């Protein structure tokens, strides 16, 4: 990250895409009548939006670079806090959802932490460190929830009904 504007552009997109991913999954699971996890993902989306609002506020007055989707410097293919789509199943349990969310928060934290350590601009380092710390709080929160969540039963993915053909 070269400067604050670039960093915030990334942070904003990171939180925005995190929230959108949680909402997208919440919608999909709502369509599939998996109420427990819907609630959880909506909550996660909400937290991401709080972060998003914060990042946007920090960016007031700054001229943020407009980056095309592929121009972001993400460590992986997608923005780090977007939950992994392949870890989702229509019958997933809150345990699975929290595990996936935890993983995405850890990646978010790692992203900010790395910038906090390596960015040339001290302003960026400071802000990144702040964000990393907030993510760390989230990680702790999620770890706690996960600890209190019963692990899934062996037959969690069982659906005795066969798939339907609808078109």
């Amino acid at each position, binding site marked *: 990250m070269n400067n604050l504007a670039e960093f915030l552009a990334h942070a904003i997109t990171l939180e925005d895409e995190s929230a959108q991913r949680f909402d*997208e999954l919440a919608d*999909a699971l709502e369509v599939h009548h998996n109420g427990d996890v819907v609630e959880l993902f909506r909550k996660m989306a909400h937290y991401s939006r709080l972060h998003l609002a914060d990042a946007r506020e920090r960016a007031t007055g700054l001229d943020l670079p407009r980056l*095309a989707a592929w121009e972001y410097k993400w460590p992986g*293919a997608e923005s780090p806090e977007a939950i992994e789509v392949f870890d989702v199943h*229509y019958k997933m349990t809150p345990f699975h959802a929290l595990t996936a969310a935890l993983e995405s928060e850890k990646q978010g934290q790692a992203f900010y932490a790395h910038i906090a350590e390596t960015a040339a601009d001290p302003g960026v380092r400071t802000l990144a460190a702040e964000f990393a710390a907030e993510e760390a709080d989230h990680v702790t929160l999620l770890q706690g929830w996960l600890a209190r969540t019963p692990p899934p039963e062996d037959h969690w993915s069982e659906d005795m009904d066969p798939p339907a053909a609808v078109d």
Partner: protein
Amino acid sequence: MMLKAQDYKSDVKPVWCPGCGDFAVLSAITKALAELQVPREDAAVVSGIGCSSRIPAYTSVYGFHSIHGRALPIATGLKAARPDLTVFCAGGDGDGFSIGGNHFIHACRRNVDLTYIVMDNEVYGMTKGQASPTTDAAWTGSKLTPEGPGVAPFRPLEMALSAGANFIARGFSGDPNFVVRLIVEAVRHPGFSLVQVLSPCVTFRPEQRAWKETTHADWAPESACTNRRDAFLKLLDDDGFTTGVLYKGNNPVFGKPQAATATLEELEKGFAL
């Protein structure tokens, strides 16, 4: 006022199974539209039948959810009659390469300026898991072909290159930001653009999550082949999992809008004695 990707999504919630690769393609299309800033009323998505063909209703641009295999001619007619619109055609590997196979060949030949996004999951998801034209000959997962289809898979990129498509690319739903770039470049490139997106079917081909490991982005868009010979040679070495832009061609693009040069009255005079 700048449109954001979310502005190109409708409020209809997709019925795709959670984990389906098509979610990422929907996002990529909307991000591409936002990158291009196409007014919503000037874009259209045309599809056929299948899971991925449900996509038009999930966008907030104009759409036509048509019949099995016929998305390409509908999109062709729309673009030929309304060259001012940005036209997408979307669907799956069955809709596009089986029943739609003939139209696919001729759409590549005709080279009308539109972008065809094929969400390839190597299975017929909507009808519960039969082999598709791109399914491996040895796949035994279908009740219809329990010994495996035993038929060499259709190679869409080779077909497109052979038939004359101007832009040929492959992406993977697990790398959606790259797919955005492929779509943006496809729309910008004149003529018929094919973007094959490997898009796993979580319900009938859950093993396809391994594509995360097998896909490799080795066709850099800036080094796309501009002649067919080079592109064919690259394809001969392709393992089916290379992503990026294979080819950017210069074949003539179909049709130019014409201004009227006569009135109907003048034309009718041709019958007068």
